[in-house]
């Protein structure tokens, strides 16, 4: 097996039906999430490299902190 490289990337996805605009995700992952004029999140769609541990950690905090369970992390393989 060997060492598992952190190749590929991830995106943070929001389920806009569940989201009620609590804004916790924008506090916990400010580099991945913006808040629009109505308080709803706008999430960066470009995949982020999994090697960017700070970004991954903040995304995990956002998923855990969302009061509506509206967020999830999806792994993508075509990260830049």
């Amino acid at each position: 097996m060997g060492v598992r490289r952190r190749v590929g990337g991830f995106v943070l996805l929001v389920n806009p039906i569940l989201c009620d605009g609590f804004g916790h995700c924008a506090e916990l992952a400010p580099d991945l999430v913006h808040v629009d004029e109505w308080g709803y999140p706008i999430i960066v769609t470009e995949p982020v490299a999994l090697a960017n541990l700070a970004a991954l950690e903040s995304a995990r905090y956002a998923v855990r902190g969302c009061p509506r369970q509206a967020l999830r992390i999806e792994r993508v393989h075509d990260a830049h």
Partner: protein
Amino acid sequence: MIALTSPYLWYTTRATGLVTLVLFTLVVSLGTLVANRVGGTAVGRFELNELHRTIAAVACAFLAIHVVTTVIDSYVSTGPLAAVVPFVSSYKRLPVALGTIALDLMLAVWASSLLKARIANASWRFIHWFSWLAFAIAVVHALLAGTDARSGIGLAVVIVCVAVVAGAGAWRFAARPTRAAGRTALSPLGGEPERASRPVPRRSEPTARPAPSADGPQRAAPAFPRRPRPGRSR
């Protein structure tokens, strides 16, 4: 059952009962703050949420001590079954049963929160409403069964707790927050000091904040269509 009795068990039951009431008052109030979208400037919304979760865990620990010391104190016979099944205690049947019902409701809230990622969010929210009922029943339990809650400091504490939770409840129903009230400025994981004063990005304007590192996220089109949602009510 082994005769296990000590005034200290009784003292512990009384003390933890009162402390549990105070802690759940805090938990309910903090939960109301989260639900009403308080925070984002001086204190983060996520911080209030974390406090809510953490104090809830502490309150459950005190509740557990309260129940266990009541059950193992054989001076009055409640019996282990009375901890979870209402109306089986031979001592103070109704007051103890009310405490049991409140405990069962809190167990439901606790279990649903532990399973939050596995169950539908609507179920979790529905079960979370039980906590108001549990608090009300627990107060009646405190007044009927409590040694200290009918006079002096104990009564004062109960009155303050009831007033705080009643105020939180009234606010919860009156406020009906429709939106998140714009951006929030606090994050534990790095942030830019000027973020709080930055203007909210306009619709068609790509956000120009620099990425945190070379391979960090790049600004791109919004993840989902940004339709206005005027006056969206919950």
